[in-house]
Protein backbone atom coordinates (compact mmCIF):
# COMPACT_ATOMS: atom_id res chain seq x y z
CA UNK A 1 0.00 0.00 0.00
CA UNK A 2 2.80 2.37 0.90
CA UNK A 3 4.59 1.77 -2.34
CA UNK A 4 1.77 2.86 -4.61
CA UNK A 5 0.88 5.90 -2.56
CA UNK A 6 4.47 6.99 -2.59
CA UNK A 7 4.60 6.47 -6.31
CA UNK A 8 1.40 8.39 -6.77
CA UNK A 9 2.69 11.21 -4.60
CA UNK A 10 5.87 11.41 -6.65
CA UNK A 11 3.86 11.66 -9.82
CA UNK A 12 1.73 14.34 -8.28
CA UNK A 13 -1.38 12.22 -8.68
CA UNK A 14 -4.80 13.18 -7.44
CA UNK A 15 -5.07 10.44 -4.85
CA UNK A 16 -5.49 11.79 -1.34
CA UNK A 17 -2.60 11.22 1.04
CA UNK A 18 -2.55 7.88 2.83
CA UNK A 19 -4.23 7.67 6.21
CA UNK A 20 -1.76 8.30 8.98
CA UNK A 21 -1.76 4.65 10.09
CA UNK A 22 -0.23 3.72 6.75
CA UNK A 23 2.72 6.01 7.23
CA UNK A 24 4.13 4.07 10.12
CA UNK A 25 7.59 2.70 10.69
CA UNK A 26 6.93 -0.16 8.27
CA UNK A 27 7.20 2.08 5.26
CA UNK A 28 10.85 2.57 6.14
CA UNK A 29 11.62 -1.11 5.60
CA UNK A 30 13.06 -2.46 2.37
CA UNK A 31 10.60 -3.04 -0.50
CA UNK A 32 11.09 -6.79 -0.25
CA UNK A 33 10.27 -6.83 3.44
CA UNK A 34 7.21 -4.64 2.89
CA UNK A 35 6.13 -6.99 0.12
CA UNK A 36 6.53 -10.08 2.31
CA UNK A 37 4.64 -8.35 5.11
CA UNK A 38 1.86 -7.41 2.73
CA UNK A 39 1.59 -11.00 1.52
CA UNK A 40 1.41 -12.36 5.04
CA UNK A 41 -1.09 -9.73 6.11
CA UNK A 42 -3.46 -11.51 3.74
CA UNK A 43 -4.95 -14.53 5.49
CA UNK A 44 -5.56 -16.47 2.29
CA UNK A 45 -2.01 -15.93 1.12
CA UNK A 46 -0.60 -17.04 4.46
CA UNK A 47 -2.67 -20.24 4.30
CA UNK A 48 -1.57 -20.73 0.70
CA UNK A 49 2.07 -20.30 1.61
CA UNK A 50 1.88 -22.80 4.47
CA UNK A 51 0.10 -25.32 2.24
CA UNK A 52 2.62 -24.90 -0.57
CA UNK A 53 5.51 -25.28 1.88
CA UNK A 54 3.86 -28.43 3.24
CA UNK A 55 3.35 -29.89 -0.23
CA UNK A 56 6.95 -29.18 -1.21
CA UNK A 57 8.09 -30.82 2.02
CA UNK A 58 5.99 -33.92 1.31
CA UNK A 59 7.27 -34.00 -2.27
CA UNK A 60 10.91 -33.86 -1.22
CA UNK A 61 10.65 -36.39 1.60
CA UNK A 62 8.07 -38.67 -0.04
CA UNK A 63 10.16 -41.88 0.25
CA UNK A 64 10.78 -41.20 3.95
CA UNK A 65 7.18 -40.21 4.74
CA UNK A 66 5.43 -42.99 2.85
CA UNK A 67 5.06 -46.15 4.96
CA UNK A 68 5.05 -48.38 1.85
CA UNK A 69 6.39 -48.27 -1.67
CA UNK A 70 3.72 -46.79 -3.96
CA UNK A 71 3.92 -49.85 -6.22
CA UNK A 72 4.02 -52.51 -3.50
CA UNK A 73 1.15 -54.86 -4.22
CA UNK A 74 -0.44 -56.65 -1.31
CA UNK A 75 0.73 -54.11 1.25
CA UNK A 76 -2.75 -54.57 2.65
CA UNK A 77 -6.03 -56.26 1.73
CA UNK A 78 -7.46 -55.62 -1.70
CA UNK A 79 -9.84 -52.63 -1.68
CA UNK A 80 -9.48 -52.31 2.09
CA UNK A 81 -11.23 -49.33 3.70
CA UNK A 82 -9.22 -46.66 5.55
CA UNK A 83 -7.75 -48.04 8.78
CA UNK A 84 -4.94 -47.25 11.20
CA UNK A 85 -2.33 -49.11 9.16
CA UNK A 86 -3.70 -47.75 5.85
CA UNK A 87 -5.16 -44.29 6.60
CA UNK A 88 -6.36 -43.79 3.00
CA UNK A 89 -7.32 -47.43 2.43
CA UNK A 90 -5.92 -49.74 -0.23
CA UNK A 91 -6.62 -50.16 -3.92
CA UNK A 92 -7.56 -53.11 -6.08
CA UNK A 93 -4.01 -54.50 -5.91
CA UNK A 94 -3.72 -53.98 -2.16
CA UNK A 95 -1.40 -51.01 -2.63
CA UNK A 96 -1.36 -48.49 0.19
CA UNK A 97 -3.28 -45.41 -1.00
CA UNK A 98 -1.61 -43.16 1.58
CA UNK A 99 1.82 -43.97 0.13
CA UNK A 100 0.52 -43.54 -3.39
CA UNK A 101 -0.92 -40.12 -2.64
CA UNK A 102 2.36 -39.06 -0.98
CA UNK A 103 4.41 -40.17 -3.96
CA UNK A 104 1.87 -38.51 -6.24
CA UNK A 105 2.67 -35.20 -4.53
CA UNK A 106 6.20 -35.49 -5.82
CA UNK A 107 5.01 -36.02 -9.41
CA UNK A 108 2.46 -33.24 -9.16
CA UNK A 109 4.89 -30.64 -7.81
CA UNK A 110 7.32 -31.72 -10.51
CA UNK A 111 4.66 -31.29 -13.19
CA UNK A 112 3.73 -27.85 -11.89
CA UNK A 113 7.30 -26.60 -11.71
CA UNK A 114 8.46 -28.01 -15.05
CA UNK A 115 5.37 -26.97 -17.00
CA UNK A 116 5.47 -23.45 -15.59
CA UNK A 117 9.24 -23.37 -16.15
CA UNK A 118 8.69 -24.09 -19.84
CA UNK A 119 5.93 -21.54 -20.34
CA UNK A 120 7.58 -18.90 -18.18
CA UNK A 121 11.00 -19.10 -19.83
CA UNK A 122 9.75 -19.15 -23.41
CA UNK A 123 6.84 -16.79 -22.83
CA UNK A 124 9.06 -14.28 -21.07
CA UNK A 125 11.67 -14.39 -23.82
CA UNK A 126 9.08 -13.92 -26.56
CA UNK A 127 7.26 -11.17 -24.69
CA UNK A 128 10.39 -9.26 -23.71
CA UNK A 129 11.98 -9.42 -27.12
CA UNK A 130 8.79 -8.36 -28.90
CA UNK A 131 8.16 -5.50 -26.52
CA UNK A 132 11.78 -4.36 -26.57
CA UNK A 133 12.64 -4.80 -30.23
CA UNK A 134 9.39 -3.59 -31.76
CA UNK A 135 9.12 -3.52 -35.55
CA UNK A 136 8.64 -6.67 -37.59
CA UNK A 137 9.86 -8.94 -34.78
CA UNK A 138 7.10 -7.60 -32.56
CA UNK A 139 4.51 -7.99 -35.28
CA UNK A 140 5.43 -11.58 -36.13
CA UNK A 141 5.79 -12.73 -32.53
CA UNK A 142 2.71 -11.08 -31.16
CA UNK A 143 0.51 -12.05 -34.12
CA UNK A 144 1.66 -15.62 -33.60
CA UNK A 145 0.89 -15.34 -29.91
CA UNK A 146 -2.56 -13.95 -30.71
CA UNK A 147 -3.28 -16.87 -32.99
CA UNK A 148 -2.10 -19.40 -30.42
CA UNK A 149 -3.97 -17.57 -27.69
CA UNK A 150 -7.24 -17.93 -29.51
CA UNK A 151 -6.76 -21.69 -29.72
CA UNK A 152 -7.20 -21.98 -25.95
CA UNK A 153 -4.80 -23.95 -23.80
CA UNK A 154 -6.79 -27.16 -23.81
CA UNK A 155 -6.63 -27.45 -27.56
CA UNK A 156 -2.90 -26.74 -27.76
CA UNK A 157 -2.20 -29.25 -25.00
CA UNK A 158 -4.33 -31.89 -26.74
CA UNK A 159 -2.65 -31.25 -30.08
CA UNK A 160 0.77 -31.48 -28.43
CA UNK A 161 -0.09 -34.78 -26.76
CA UNK A 162 -1.56 -36.05 -30.02
CA UNK A 163 1.77 -35.36 -31.68
CA UNK A 164 4.10 -36.44 -28.87
CA UNK A 165 2.12 -39.44 -27.65
CA UNK A 166 0.76 -40.10 -24.16
CA UNK A 167 3.18 -39.96 -21.21
CA UNK A 168 3.62 -37.82 -18.12
CA UNK A 169 6.70 -36.08 -19.53
CA UNK A 170 4.83 -35.25 -22.72
CA UNK A 171 1.86 -34.03 -20.71
CA UNK A 172 4.17 -31.64 -18.83
CA UNK A 173 5.63 -30.37 -22.09
CA UNK A 174 2.17 -30.06 -23.64
CA UNK A 175 0.77 -28.13 -20.69
CA UNK A 176 3.88 -25.96 -20.65
CA UNK A 177 3.66 -25.16 -24.36
CA UNK A 178 -0.04 -24.45 -24.12
CA UNK A 179 0.49 -21.64 -21.62
CA UNK A 180 3.33 -19.88 -23.48
CA UNK A 181 1.04 -17.38 -25.26
CA UNK A 182 -0.40 -16.25 -21.96
CA UNK A 183 3.00 -15.59 -20.38
CA UNK A 184 4.21 -13.91 -23.56
CA UNK A 185 1.26 -11.54 -23.53
CA UNK A 186 1.70 -10.56 -19.91
CA UNK A 187 5.46 -10.03 -20.33
CA UNK A 188 4.88 -8.06 -23.52
CA UNK A 189 2.50 -5.59 -21.89
CA UNK A 190 4.78 -5.15 -18.88
CA UNK A 191 7.78 -4.67 -21.16
CA UNK A 192 6.01 -1.97 -23.15
CA UNK A 193 5.38 -0.01 -19.98
CA UNK A 194 8.89 -0.56 -18.58
CA UNK A 195 10.64 0.38 -21.83
CA UNK A 196 9.23 3.89 -21.61
CA UNK A 197 10.65 4.48 -18.17
CA UNK A 198 13.67 6.75 -17.69
CA UNK A 199 15.92 4.06 -16.22
CA UNK A 200 16.00 2.23 -19.54
CA UNK A 201 16.88 5.41 -21.34
CA UNK A 202 19.53 6.14 -18.72
CA UNK A 203 21.04 2.68 -19.10
CA UNK A 204 21.02 3.06 -22.88
CA UNK A 205 22.63 6.49 -22.64
CA UNK A 206 25.39 5.12 -20.45
CA UNK A 207 26.20 2.66 -23.21
CA UNK A 208 24.49 -0.58 -22.20
CA UNK A 209 24.13 -3.04 -25.07
CA UNK A 210 20.87 -4.75 -26.02
CA UNK A 211 21.57 -7.93 -24.08
CA UNK A 212 22.60 -5.99 -21.00
CA UNK A 213 19.52 -3.79 -21.24
CA UNK A 214 17.27 -6.81 -21.65
CA UNK A 215 18.68 -9.05 -18.96
CA UNK A 216 20.27 -6.71 -16.41
CA UNK A 217 17.83 -3.84 -16.48
CA UNK A 218 14.54 -4.96 -17.97
CA UNK A 219 14.35 -8.51 -16.62
CA UNK A 220 14.37 -7.65 -12.89
CA UNK A 221 11.46 -5.27 -13.46
CA UNK A 222 9.47 -7.66 -15.59
CA UNK A 223 9.67 -10.47 -13.06
CA UNK A 224 7.45 -9.19 -10.19
CA UNK A 225 4.15 -9.22 -12.10
CA UNK A 226 5.15 -12.56 -13.58
CA UNK A 227 5.50 -14.08 -10.11
CA UNK A 228 1.75 -13.75 -9.72
CA UNK A 229 1.09 -15.24 -13.13
CA UNK A 230 3.52 -18.10 -12.52
CA UNK A 231 2.12 -18.95 -9.09
CA UNK A 232 -1.42 -19.07 -10.44
CA UNK A 233 0.02 -20.87 -13.45
CA UNK A 234 1.19 -23.76 -11.28
CA UNK A 235 -2.40 -24.45 -10.27
CA UNK A 236 -3.60 -24.32 -13.87
CA UNK A 237 -0.76 -26.61 -14.94
CA UNK A 238 -1.44 -29.09 -12.14
CA UNK A 239 -5.14 -29.21 -13.03
CA UNK A 240 -4.47 -29.57 -16.74
CA UNK A 241 -1.86 -32.29 -16.32
CA UNK A 242 -4.08 -34.19 -13.88
CA UNK A 243 -6.91 -33.94 -16.41
CA UNK A 244 -4.67 -35.29 -19.18
CA UNK A 245 -3.59 -38.17 -16.96
CA UNK A 246 -7.19 -38.82 -16.03
CA UNK A 247 -8.05 -39.03 -19.71
CA UNK A 248 -5.20 -41.52 -20.13
CA UNK A 249 -3.06 -39.07 -22.09
CA UNK A 250 -0.57 -38.32 -19.32
CA UNK A 251 0.88 -40.55 -16.60
CA UNK A 252 0.16 -44.22 -17.23
CA UNK A 253 -0.65 -46.88 -14.62
CA UNK A 254 0.90 -47.96 -12.29
CA UNK A 255 2.14 -44.38 -11.80
CA UNK A 256 0.81 -42.88 -8.55
CA UNK A 257 0.06 -39.61 -10.38
CA UNK A 258 -3.24 -38.42 -8.90
CA UNK A 259 -5.14 -38.05 -12.17
CA UNK A 260 -4.07 -41.51 -13.30
CA UNK A 261 -5.02 -43.01 -9.91
CA UNK A 262 -8.45 -41.38 -10.13
CA UNK A 263 -8.95 -42.75 -13.59
CA UNK A 264 -8.09 -46.28 -12.48
CA UNK A 265 -10.15 -45.91 -9.29
CA UNK A 266 -13.35 -44.92 -11.08
CA UNK A 267 -14.14 -48.58 -11.74
CA UNK A 268 -14.29 -49.16 -8.00
CA UNK A 269 -16.12 -46.10 -6.91
CA UNK A 270 -19.10 -48.07 -5.74
CA UNK A 271 -17.14 -50.53 -3.61
CA UNK A 272 -14.06 -48.48 -2.66
CA UNK A 273 -14.84 -44.75 -2.94
CA UNK A 274 -11.65 -43.85 -1.00
CA UNK A 275 -9.54 -44.66 -4.04
CA UNK A 276 -10.95 -41.63 -5.82
CA UNK A 277 -11.64 -39.53 -2.75
CA UNK A 278 -8.07 -38.90 -1.56
CA UNK A 279 -6.25 -38.24 -4.85
CA UNK A 280 -9.06 -35.83 -5.80
CA UNK A 281 -8.76 -34.02 -2.49
CA UNK A 282 -5.00 -33.89 -2.95
CA UNK A 283 -5.37 -32.25 -6.38
CA UNK A 284 -7.85 -29.78 -4.99
CA UNK A 285 -5.64 -28.83 -2.03
CA UNK A 286 -2.61 -28.36 -4.28
CA UNK A 287 -4.50 -26.19 -6.75
CA UNK A 288 -6.10 -24.26 -3.90
CA UNK A 289 -2.72 -23.65 -2.24
CA UNK A 290 -1.21 -22.09 -5.35
CA UNK A 291 -4.39 -20.13 -6.09
CA UNK A 292 -4.45 -18.65 -2.59
CA UNK A 293 -0.77 -17.80 -2.70
CA UNK A 294 -1.01 -16.27 -6.17
CA UNK A 295 -4.07 -14.22 -5.27
CA UNK A 296 -2.34 -13.04 -2.12
CA UNK A 297 0.78 -11.95 -3.96
CA UNK A 298 -1.35 -10.13 -6.51
CA UNK A 299 -3.20 -8.26 -3.80
CA UNK A 300 0.11 -7.41 -2.13
CA UNK A 301 1.42 -6.01 -5.40
CA UNK A 302 -1.79 -4.27 -6.36
CA UNK A 303 -3.26 -2.41 -3.38
CA UNK A 304 -6.39 -1.52 -5.33
CA UNK A 305 -7.54 -5.14 -5.05
CA UNK A 306 -6.91 -5.41 -1.35
CA UNK A 307 -9.82 -5.78 0.99
CA UNK A 308 -10.48 -2.88 3.31
Amino acid at each position, binding site marked *: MQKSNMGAALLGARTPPAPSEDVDARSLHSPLRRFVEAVFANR*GAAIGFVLVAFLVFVAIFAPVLAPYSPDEMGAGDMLGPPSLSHPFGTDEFGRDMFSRVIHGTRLTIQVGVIAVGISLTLGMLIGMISGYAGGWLERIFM*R*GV*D*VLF*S*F*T*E*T*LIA*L*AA*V*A*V*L*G*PSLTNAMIAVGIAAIPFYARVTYSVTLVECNKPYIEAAYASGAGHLRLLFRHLLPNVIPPLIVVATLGV*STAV*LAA*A*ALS*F*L*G*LGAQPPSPEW*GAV*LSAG*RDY*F*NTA*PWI*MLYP*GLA*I*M*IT*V*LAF*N*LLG*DGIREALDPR*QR*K*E
Partner: protein
Amino acid sequence: MTKYLVTRIFAAIVTVWVTTIAVSMLIHVVPGDPVQIMYAQSQGTTPEQLENIRRSLGLDQPIVTQYFMYMKKLMHGDLGHTIRGEQPVMDLLLLHLPYTLLLAGTALVIAIAIGMPLGFIAAYKRGSWLDTSLMTAAILGVSMPSFWLGLILLFTFAVRLEWLPVAGSGIQNLVLPAITLGVANAAIIARLTRSSMIDIFDQDFIRTARAKGLPRATVLYRHALRAGLVPIVTMIGMQFTYMMGGAIVVENVFGWNGVGRMAIQAIFQRDYPLIQGFILMFAIIVVIVSVLMDLLYVRLDPRIRYR
Protein backbone atom coordinates in the same frame (compact mmCIF):
# COMPACT_ATOMS: atom_id res chain seq x y z
CA MET B 1 -15.79 1.50 -35.38
CA THR B 2 -15.98 0.01 -38.84
CA LYS B 3 -12.20 -0.02 -38.88
CA TYR B 4 -12.15 -1.84 -35.55
CA LEU B 5 -14.52 -4.50 -36.85
CA VAL B 6 -12.68 -4.92 -40.14
CA THR B 7 -9.42 -5.38 -38.24
CA ARG B 8 -10.99 -7.96 -35.95
CA ILE B 9 -12.57 -9.94 -38.79
CA PHE B 10 -9.32 -9.83 -40.74
CA ALA B 11 -7.46 -11.12 -37.68
CA ALA B 12 -10.02 -13.90 -37.36
CA ILE B 13 -9.48 -14.95 -40.97
CA VAL B 14 -5.71 -14.95 -40.47
CA THR B 15 -6.15 -17.13 -37.39
CA VAL B 16 -8.20 -19.69 -39.28
CA TRP B 17 -5.74 -19.66 -42.14
CA VAL B 18 -2.77 -20.21 -39.83
CA THR B 19 -4.71 -23.03 -38.21
CA THR B 20 -5.16 -24.77 -41.54
CA ILE B 21 -1.39 -24.62 -42.06
CA ALA B 22 -0.69 -25.86 -38.52
CA VAL B 23 -3.25 -28.63 -38.83
CA SER B 24 -2.03 -29.85 -42.18
CA MET B 25 1.55 -29.89 -40.87
CA LEU B 26 0.54 -31.74 -37.69
CA ILE B 27 1.15 -35.12 -39.21
CA HIS B 28 4.69 -34.15 -40.22
CA VAL B 29 5.85 -33.16 -36.75
CA VAL B 30 4.88 -36.55 -35.32
CA PRO B 31 8.12 -38.24 -34.29
CA GLY B 32 8.63 -41.35 -36.42
CA ASP B 33 6.59 -42.55 -39.36
CA PRO B 34 2.98 -41.41 -38.88
CA VAL B 35 1.59 -44.05 -41.20
CA GLN B 36 3.34 -46.80 -39.29
CA ILE B 37 2.15 -45.33 -35.98
CA MET B 38 -1.41 -45.02 -37.23
CA TYR B 39 -1.54 -48.58 -38.43
CA ALA B 40 0.51 -50.07 -35.61
CA GLN B 41 -2.66 -51.45 -34.07
CA SER B 42 -4.00 -53.17 -37.14
CA GLN B 43 -1.83 -56.24 -37.52
CA GLY B 44 -0.48 -57.66 -40.73
CA THR B 45 -0.24 -54.56 -42.86
CA THR B 46 2.39 -55.21 -45.50
CA PRO B 47 4.93 -52.55 -46.53
CA GLU B 48 3.11 -52.31 -49.89
CA GLN B 49 -0.15 -51.55 -48.14
CA LEU B 50 1.55 -48.87 -46.03
CA GLU B 51 2.93 -47.37 -49.23
CA ASN B 52 -0.57 -47.30 -50.71
CA ILE B 53 -1.94 -45.62 -47.64
CA ARG B 54 0.84 -43.08 -47.73
CA ARG B 55 -0.04 -42.33 -51.33
CA SER B 56 -3.77 -42.11 -50.64
CA LEU B 57 -3.09 -39.61 -47.84
CA GLY B 58 -0.90 -37.65 -50.24
CA LEU B 59 2.11 -38.07 -47.97
CA ASP B 60 4.38 -38.90 -50.91
CA GLN B 61 3.89 -35.39 -52.31
CA PRO B 62 5.99 -32.32 -51.44
CA ILE B 63 4.73 -30.53 -48.34
CA VAL B 64 3.51 -27.46 -50.21
CA THR B 65 1.57 -29.61 -52.66
CA GLN B 66 0.08 -31.47 -49.72
CA TYR B 67 -1.09 -28.21 -48.19
CA PHE B 68 -2.76 -27.15 -51.44
CA MET B 69 -4.40 -30.55 -51.76
CA TYR B 70 -5.62 -30.25 -48.18
CA MET B 71 -6.99 -26.75 -48.79
CA LYS B 72 -8.66 -27.77 -52.04
CA LYS B 73 -10.48 -30.57 -50.30
CA LEU B 74 -11.27 -28.34 -47.36
CA MET B 75 -12.92 -25.80 -49.65
CA HIS B 76 -15.28 -28.56 -50.72
CA GLY B 77 -16.04 -29.40 -47.11
CA ASP B 78 -13.93 -32.54 -47.24
CA LEU B 79 -11.79 -33.18 -44.17
CA GLY B 80 -10.70 -36.63 -45.28
CA HIS B 81 -11.63 -40.01 -43.87
CA THR B 82 -10.94 -41.60 -40.52
CA ILE B 83 -8.22 -44.22 -40.40
CA ARG B 84 -10.46 -46.70 -38.66
CA GLY B 85 -13.80 -47.25 -40.32
CA GLU B 86 -13.05 -44.92 -43.24
CA GLN B 87 -15.87 -42.57 -42.26
CA PRO B 88 -15.87 -38.98 -43.53
CA VAL B 89 -14.39 -36.80 -40.77
CA MET B 90 -16.83 -34.00 -41.52
CA ASP B 91 -19.85 -36.25 -40.94
CA LEU B 92 -18.48 -37.44 -37.61
CA LEU B 93 -17.78 -33.89 -36.44
CA LEU B 94 -21.24 -32.71 -37.44
CA LEU B 95 -22.78 -35.72 -35.73
CA HIS B 96 -21.09 -35.11 -32.38
CA LEU B 97 -20.75 -31.32 -32.32
CA PRO B 98 -24.37 -30.54 -31.36
CA TYR B 99 -23.94 -32.60 -28.19
CA THR B 100 -20.89 -30.62 -27.15
CA LEU B 101 -22.52 -27.29 -27.95
CA LEU B 102 -25.60 -28.32 -25.99
CA LEU B 103 -23.47 -29.32 -23.01
CA ALA B 104 -21.28 -26.22 -23.08
CA GLY B 105 -24.27 -23.93 -23.66
CA THR B 106 -26.30 -25.39 -20.80
CA ALA B 107 -23.28 -25.23 -18.52
CA LEU B 108 -22.72 -21.61 -19.49
CA VAL B 109 -26.30 -20.73 -18.59
CA ILE B 110 -25.87 -22.46 -15.22
CA ALA B 111 -22.55 -20.73 -14.63
CA ILE B 112 -23.94 -17.28 -15.43
CA ALA B 113 -27.11 -17.84 -13.42
CA ILE B 114 -25.09 -18.79 -10.34
CA GLY B 115 -21.90 -16.81 -10.79
CA MET B 116 -23.07 -13.35 -11.80
CA PRO B 117 -25.56 -12.67 -8.98
CA LEU B 118 -23.19 -14.07 -6.36
CA GLY B 119 -20.27 -12.01 -7.67
CA PHE B 120 -22.46 -8.92 -7.72
CA ILE B 121 -23.61 -9.49 -4.14
CA ALA B 122 -20.04 -10.11 -2.99
CA ALA B 123 -18.87 -6.87 -4.58
CA TYR B 124 -21.77 -4.93 -3.11
CA LYS B 125 -21.14 -6.34 0.35
CA ARG B 126 -17.39 -6.04 -0.03
CA GLY B 127 -15.45 -6.94 3.10
CA SER B 128 -18.44 -8.47 4.87
CA TRP B 129 -18.71 -12.07 6.08
CA LEU B 130 -20.96 -12.76 3.10
CA ASP B 131 -18.26 -11.58 0.69
CA THR B 132 -15.64 -13.66 2.47
CA SER B 133 -17.72 -16.82 2.47
CA LEU B 134 -18.82 -16.40 -1.14
CA MET B 135 -15.25 -15.86 -2.29
CA THR B 136 -14.03 -18.80 -0.21
CA ALA B 137 -16.62 -20.96 -1.93
CA ALA B 138 -15.55 -19.53 -5.27
CA ILE B 139 -11.87 -20.29 -4.81
CA LEU B 140 -12.76 -23.83 -3.71
CA GLY B 141 -14.88 -24.14 -6.85
CA VAL B 142 -12.06 -22.88 -9.05
CA SER B 143 -9.62 -25.33 -7.46
CA MET B 144 -11.80 -28.41 -7.78
CA PRO B 145 -10.86 -30.67 -10.69
CA SER B 146 -13.97 -30.99 -12.86
CA PHE B 147 -13.44 -34.70 -13.47
CA TRP B 148 -13.37 -35.32 -9.73
CA LEU B 149 -16.53 -33.31 -9.12
CA GLY B 150 -18.09 -35.19 -12.03
CA LEU B 151 -17.19 -38.57 -10.54
CA ILE B 152 -18.58 -37.56 -7.15
CA LEU B 153 -21.86 -36.36 -8.67
CA LEU B 154 -22.07 -39.48 -10.80
CA PHE B 155 -21.43 -41.66 -7.78
CA THR B 156 -23.90 -39.85 -5.55
CA PHE B 157 -26.82 -39.13 -7.85
CA ALA B 158 -26.61 -41.85 -10.47
CA VAL B 159 -25.07 -44.84 -8.68
CA ARG B 160 -26.14 -44.44 -5.05
CA LEU B 161 -29.41 -42.52 -5.21
CA GLU B 162 -30.30 -43.71 -8.73
CA TRP B 163 -32.04 -40.41 -9.49
CA LEU B 164 -30.43 -40.10 -12.86
CA PRO B 165 -29.10 -42.55 -15.43
CA VAL B 166 -25.38 -43.36 -15.33
CA ALA B 167 -24.51 -43.00 -19.00
CA GLY B 168 -26.12 -42.11 -22.29
CA SER B 169 -26.89 -39.02 -24.28
CA GLY B 170 -30.50 -38.21 -23.51
CA ILE B 171 -31.74 -35.02 -21.91
CA GLN B 172 -31.65 -36.64 -18.45
CA ASN B 173 -28.01 -37.41 -19.01
CA LEU B 174 -27.30 -33.75 -19.61
CA VAL B 175 -28.07 -32.75 -16.02
CA LEU B 176 -24.95 -33.97 -14.23
CA PRO B 177 -22.33 -33.04 -16.85
CA ALA B 178 -23.86 -29.58 -17.26
CA ILE B 179 -23.80 -29.02 -13.50
CA THR B 180 -20.23 -30.31 -13.29
CA LEU B 181 -19.04 -27.99 -16.01
CA GLY B 182 -21.25 -25.14 -14.82
CA VAL B 183 -20.19 -25.10 -11.17
CA ALA B 184 -16.46 -24.64 -11.76
CA ASN B 185 -17.16 -21.87 -14.24
CA ALA B 186 -19.74 -20.25 -11.97
CA ALA B 187 -16.89 -19.81 -9.51
CA ILE B 188 -14.74 -18.14 -12.15
CA ILE B 189 -17.58 -15.88 -13.28
CA ALA B 190 -18.35 -14.93 -9.67
CA ARG B 191 -14.74 -13.88 -9.13
CA LEU B 192 -14.61 -11.90 -12.38
CA THR B 193 -17.96 -10.24 -11.70
CA ARG B 194 -16.87 -9.25 -8.21
CA SER B 195 -13.62 -7.61 -9.28
CA SER B 196 -15.27 -5.91 -12.26
CA MET B 197 -18.08 -4.53 -10.10
CA ILE B 198 -15.69 -3.36 -7.40
CA ASP B 199 -13.89 -1.31 -10.02
CA ILE B 200 -17.20 0.25 -11.04
CA PHE B 201 -18.43 0.92 -7.50
CA ASP B 202 -15.26 2.92 -6.86
CA GLN B 203 -15.83 5.25 -9.78
CA ASP B 204 -16.90 8.85 -9.74
CA PHE B 205 -20.11 8.47 -11.70
CA ILE B 206 -21.49 6.06 -9.11
CA ARG B 207 -20.67 8.50 -6.33
CA THR B 208 -22.31 11.27 -8.34
CA ALA B 209 -25.42 9.21 -8.93
CA ARG B 210 -25.68 8.48 -5.22
CA ALA B 211 -24.93 12.05 -4.26
CA LYS B 212 -27.72 13.42 -6.41
CA GLY B 213 -30.09 11.24 -4.43
CA LEU B 214 -31.06 8.54 -6.88
CA PRO B 215 -32.62 5.47 -5.30
CA ARG B 216 -30.10 2.79 -4.47
CA ALA B 217 -31.70 0.28 -6.85
CA THR B 218 -31.45 2.71 -9.76
CA VAL B 219 -27.80 3.33 -9.05
CA LEU B 220 -27.12 -0.40 -8.77
CA TYR B 221 -29.01 -1.65 -11.79
CA ARG B 222 -29.08 1.30 -14.18
CA HIS B 223 -25.62 2.70 -13.56
CA ALA B 224 -23.34 0.13 -11.97
CA LEU B 225 -24.60 -3.07 -13.57
CA ARG B 226 -24.72 -1.56 -17.03
CA ALA B 227 -21.16 -0.35 -16.87
CA GLY B 228 -19.94 -3.50 -15.17
CA LEU B 229 -21.64 -5.75 -17.70
CA VAL B 230 -19.33 -4.74 -20.54
CA PRO B 231 -16.13 -6.36 -19.28
CA ILE B 232 -18.14 -9.28 -17.88
CA VAL B 233 -19.70 -10.05 -21.24
CA THR B 234 -16.32 -10.22 -22.95
CA MET B 235 -15.07 -12.48 -20.21
CA ILE B 236 -18.09 -14.72 -20.64
CA GLY B 237 -17.22 -15.05 -24.31
CA MET B 238 -13.83 -16.38 -23.33
CA GLN B 239 -15.58 -18.53 -20.76
CA PHE B 240 -17.52 -20.29 -23.48
CA THR B 241 -14.31 -21.33 -25.19
CA TYR B 242 -12.93 -22.57 -21.87
CA MET B 243 -16.13 -24.55 -21.51
CA MET B 244 -15.63 -26.15 -24.88
CA GLY B 245 -12.24 -27.21 -23.57
CA GLY B 246 -13.67 -28.31 -20.23
CA ALA B 247 -16.37 -30.25 -22.05
CA ILE B 248 -13.68 -32.54 -23.46
CA VAL B 249 -12.87 -33.76 -19.97
CA VAL B 250 -16.43 -33.84 -18.65
CA GLU B 251 -17.73 -35.72 -21.69
CA ASN B 252 -15.25 -38.44 -20.94
CA VAL B 253 -16.36 -38.72 -17.32
CA PHE B 254 -20.01 -39.11 -18.23
CA GLY B 255 -19.71 -40.84 -21.57
CA TRP B 256 -21.50 -37.90 -23.20
CA ASN B 257 -21.51 -38.36 -26.94
CA GLY B 258 -19.80 -35.11 -27.92
CA VAL B 259 -16.76 -34.20 -29.99
CA GLY B 260 -14.52 -34.18 -26.91
CA ARG B 261 -14.99 -37.88 -26.25
CA MET B 262 -14.52 -38.55 -29.94
CA ALA B 263 -11.29 -36.51 -29.97
CA ILE B 264 -9.75 -38.37 -27.04
CA GLN B 265 -10.55 -41.70 -28.71
CA ALA B 266 -9.01 -40.36 -31.90
CA ILE B 267 -5.82 -39.46 -30.03
CA PHE B 268 -5.66 -42.95 -28.54
CA GLN B 269 -6.13 -44.52 -31.94
CA ARG B 270 -3.71 -42.10 -33.54
CA ASP B 271 -6.43 -41.26 -36.02
CA TYR B 272 -4.72 -38.15 -37.39
CA PRO B 273 -7.33 -37.08 -39.98
CA LEU B 274 -9.94 -37.04 -37.22
CA ILE B 275 -7.62 -35.17 -34.82
CA GLN B 276 -6.84 -32.62 -37.54
CA GLY B 277 -10.51 -32.11 -38.28
CA PHE B 278 -11.30 -31.72 -34.60
CA ILE B 279 -8.60 -29.10 -34.03
CA LEU B 280 -9.65 -27.11 -37.07
CA MET B 281 -13.30 -27.20 -36.08
CA PHE B 282 -12.52 -26.21 -32.51
CA ALA B 283 -10.37 -23.29 -33.63
CA ILE B 284 -13.08 -22.06 -36.01
CA ILE B 285 -15.67 -22.16 -33.24
CA VAL B 286 -13.37 -20.24 -30.90
CA VAL B 287 -12.74 -17.63 -33.58
CA ILE B 288 -16.43 -17.25 -34.38
CA VAL B 289 -17.29 -16.85 -30.70
CA SER B 290 -14.62 -14.23 -30.18
CA VAL B 291 -15.79 -12.21 -33.19
CA LEU B 292 -19.38 -12.43 -31.94
CA MET B 293 -18.25 -11.25 -28.53
CA ASP B 294 -16.49 -8.29 -30.12
CA LEU B 295 -19.69 -7.37 -31.94
CA LEU B 296 -21.60 -7.59 -28.70
CA TYR B 297 -18.96 -5.53 -26.95
CA VAL B 298 -19.31 -2.80 -29.55
CA ARG B 299 -23.07 -2.98 -29.14
CA LEU B 300 -22.89 -2.68 -25.36
CA ASP B 301 -20.20 -0.07 -25.00
CA PRO B 302 -21.07 3.29 -26.54
CA ARG B 303 -17.48 4.44 -26.00
CA ILE B 304 -16.39 2.06 -28.73
CA ARG B 305 -19.45 2.49 -30.92
CA TYR B 306 -18.88 6.17 -31.46
CA ARG B 307 -15.13 6.11 -31.77
